[in-house]
């Protein structure tokens, strides 16, 4: 019945991209006529919601291949779902944020939507060309978005640093792409696997070299251990609203492409690569947690703790031979990671909205206390989100941690297990340091602006309820994922 109206299956599969792009054009044209923040916000929200709805529609026709460039299966839909969901949460906070402070409000939405489009392309990509385009489309608008910070003067050098670093890394990845092209003669992903399987060891080494260079840019975006130094500056100066975006959407999209790429790297031919990933995961977990323990600024602190989480998720790459299990667990983990990050950074954004002073450090974290005064439910919500980050039982975080550990034990990654033990020691130290600040009644900072910002609080409470529900009955998600195996 439904198929009668729609000419081609592949057109439906491209719907999210169409919706997002057309909304960008609509916003542009509306801005020519008249700048209207509410209208632009509504258009953005509508387009994101439509994208979300269209995913349920695409669900019935996956897997789809659209030329050789794009390929959509159930897992791409799941990743897109996470991306769009966190974008919607972010948009609802962004609106209040922009309403209060800025002149160029509408441009923010255009940049954001184009970045989300990049993320969607990246998740659907099946060709190195599309991966490259998606990655650039994902990250270039972020340069613009960083400028939406309170301190214009400090943010310019930070942006410059970030732009320079990421362009250098992009050139690395271009080098890698050329090497891959040299060996394979094409840039389709499945040809890489064929090349690995048919060539001899020497040529495989060259190909591996190209792959590692190409992956460098991916690791940079994920800010894994040796490539994490930009975090301190960028996270420090970017507004927390943007951090919601760059911690969740960017990382989820980039990770999805990583897991897609690794399907095409056969284990026996690329043993060194897998060893490298294991090393990277261990180093990210240990160093991320150590550095997070000594952070004084809460935003960089969450940046480093996100490194630890990405380190955990990298474990799923090592068992990519079991495609379904590794994807399922990655998605389960990423859902927890996104939800908790959104919750935490929305709390931060309330604080900053109240304070109008972006740079506050952990020492003055007793501002949390003023925020939560007389709001026990919000207080519980924040503690639940923290515990979920920490992996305490009866929150969703514990289930994810449990699954990751079970992968590690099943495949006998003893060193990874050791690093998990170390990082859990550090983890409980630094997360509880923040929870302590919630209770601390001493040295309260008085903030004049006591606007309630109910909308953000509702987002936080909603997320915490979701975390507890999923923690108590994780079979809800597991059933959905299992049905598609």
């Amino acid at each position: 019945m439904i198929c009668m109206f729609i000419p081609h299956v592949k057109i439906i599969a491209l719907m999210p991209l169409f919706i997002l792009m057309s909304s960008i054009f609509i916003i542009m044209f509306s801005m020519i006529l008249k700048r209207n923040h509410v209208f632009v916000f509504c258009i953005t929200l509508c387009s994101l919601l439509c994208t979300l709805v269209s995913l349920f529609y695409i669900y019935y026709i996956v897997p789809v291949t659209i030329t050789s460039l794009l390929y959509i299966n159930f897992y791409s839909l799941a990743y897109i779902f996470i991306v769009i969901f966190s974008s919607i949460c972010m948009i609802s906070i962004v609106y209040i944020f922009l309403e209060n402070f800025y002149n160029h409000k509408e441009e923010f939405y255009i940049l954001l939507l184009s970045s989300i489009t990049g993320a969607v392309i990246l998740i659907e990509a099946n060709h190195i060309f599309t991966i490259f385009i998606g990655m650039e489309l994902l990250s270039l608008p972020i340069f613009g978005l960083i400028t939406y910070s309170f301190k214009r003067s400090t943010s310019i050098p930070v942006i410059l640093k970030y732009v320079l670093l990421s362009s250098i890394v992009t050139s690395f990845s271009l080098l890698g792409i050329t090497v891959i092209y040299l060996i394979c003669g094409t840039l389709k992903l499945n040809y890489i696997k064929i090349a690995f399987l048919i060539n001899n060891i020497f040529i495989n080494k060259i190909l591996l070299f190209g792959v590692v260079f190409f992956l460098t840019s991916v690791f940079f975006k994920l800010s894994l251990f040796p490539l994490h130094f930009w975090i301190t500056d960028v996270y420090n100066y970017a507004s927390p609203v943007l951090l919601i975006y760059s911690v969740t959407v960017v990382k989820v999209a980039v990770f999805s492409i990583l897991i897609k790429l690794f399907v095409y790297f056969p284990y026996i031919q690329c043993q060194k690569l897998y060893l490298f990933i294991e090393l990277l995961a261990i180093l990210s977990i240990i160093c991320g947690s150590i550095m997070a323990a000594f952070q004084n600024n809460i935003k960089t602190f969450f940046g480093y703790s996100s490194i630890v989480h990405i380190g955990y998720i990298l474990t799923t790459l090592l068992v990519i031979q079991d495609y379904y299990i590794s994807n399922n667990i990655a998605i389960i983990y990423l859902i927890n990671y996104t939800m908790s990050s959104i919750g935490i950074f929305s709390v931060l954004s309330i604080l900053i909205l109240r304070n109008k002073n972006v740079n506050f450090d952990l020492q003055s974290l007793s501002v949390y206390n003023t925020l939560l005064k007389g709001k026990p439910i919000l207080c519980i919500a924040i503690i639940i989100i923290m515990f979920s980050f920490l992996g305490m039982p009866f929150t969703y975080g514990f289930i994810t941690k449990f699954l990751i550990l079970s992968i590690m034990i099943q495949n006998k990654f003893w060193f990874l297990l050791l690093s998990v033990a170390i990082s859990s020691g550090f983890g409980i130290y630094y997360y509880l340091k923040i929870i302590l600040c919630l209770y601390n009644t001493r040295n309260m900072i008085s903030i004049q602006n006591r606007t309630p910002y109910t909308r953000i609080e509702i987002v936080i409470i909603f997320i915490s309820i979701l975390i507890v529900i999923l923690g108590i009955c994780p079979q809800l998600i597991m059933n959905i994922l299992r049905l598609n195996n």
Partner: protein
Amino acid sequence: MLSLFLIVPFVGSVCCWFFGRQGYKFARFFAILAVMCIVLLSILIWLKDFYHHERCYHIYWYDELIIPWIPQLGIELHLALDGLSFIMIALTSVLSLIAVLCSFYQIKNNEGLFYFNLLFMVFGIMGVLLSIDLFLFFCFWEIMVLPMYFLIIFWGNPQYTEKQKIYTANKFLIYTQVSSIVMLFSILLLSFNYYYQTAIWTFDYNCFINNSIPLPLEYIIMLGFFIAFAVKMPIVPFHGWFVNCHSQSCIDGSFDVLGMLIKVAAYGLLRFNMHLFQHTSHNLHLIVFFLGIITIFYGAWMAFCELNLKKIIAYSSISHMGFILITIYCNNIFSYYGAIIQIIASSFTTSALFILLSQLYRRTHTNIITNLGGLYATIKWIPGFFLFFLFANLNLPGTINFVGEIMALIGIFIQSPYLGCILVFSLLFSVIYSLYITHKIFYGPLKNNFTMTCKQIDFLEFFMILFFMLITLILGIYPNNILQVIRLSIT
């Protein structure tokens, strides 16, 4: 019925939090109500299942509750009760009642939250004692320690600075967190082993108990469990968190719940290490004996060196735990009785001593031995009680400690007579430090003048101590009630 043991403290804790905002009286009311309910429940269970001991539903368990939880991984909400866990539960409920009563003596800031944490800890302990599914067990095991962290930091001993308390609490939490993640590895390994053998995902204790594990793997798994329990107990290489935790916690004796936290580790050893890993536990028993002897003598000697009364009691409790560890690993019928009775006895005497110490502290405002002296003349009752419990700590005949001691020593003697001979000497050292304390505090010239003006013992304090004393004496003279319950759990 079993689920009530979890529901009551949980609901009670939440009620305390919400109604505690209206005023501390509400919080106290709900706390005492919840704890009374638990005590009544355990009495009911005793009457129902253990008084007429011919009733038996199952091979192991008297009462069971199974609700599927995560069917994909074979995880169930599986609660069960046998004699061992019943004894521990009854102990916990009595101790938590006393803890709540004790904490009435101080009006704190944020009292609702205090009772929330206290009851939440009781909830966690009950969960650990009741859960048979290892996944569930681990969940409660993690949950159990968190309230302790907040109790130390926010309602700790005001003598210490905030920074010291945070340091102590962090140390405590990092120790337990790292050890519990090691235990999680072990639980997962156990489950994977079962999966490879039978292709069934499960975390059920009943399944594991009949399952054979390859010996090298069993060593790894056993060590994972052992480390987690040894950190909680605490056995000497892992005891770093323990003493400071005791001295910097609440001054008003509500800290005997920490005692319960420790006893849970002994329960874990009895339940899991001795039953799931019989071979390796037997193979490694010499090492464990060695650790236990070190723990006993270290605790006794450190208690002798220490000047802070609270730390002395903490060290003596370490010494007791070493003794219990050795008794558990002797693995015969006498030592089994002995271990359980010693767990009961030492938690009663230690918590009674802590309560007495807090009462002393309230009158003299110091815990240091050298500042005290000649209290016998000024304060009625308390010195007498103190003396009684110190002697009970030395296993005086007529107290329950004596029953446990005799049973344990018989068990140890059967296992290895030399070890028994060495352990008898440990009694000597505990006599020395106990006599030293009593002499310093209660006899001799009166040191400080302010002790002259202090108030006498009041009814509630008197009642609590009397209660402990009566229990110690009654169970000591007529221990058959407990022995019967334990005997039922062995079959």
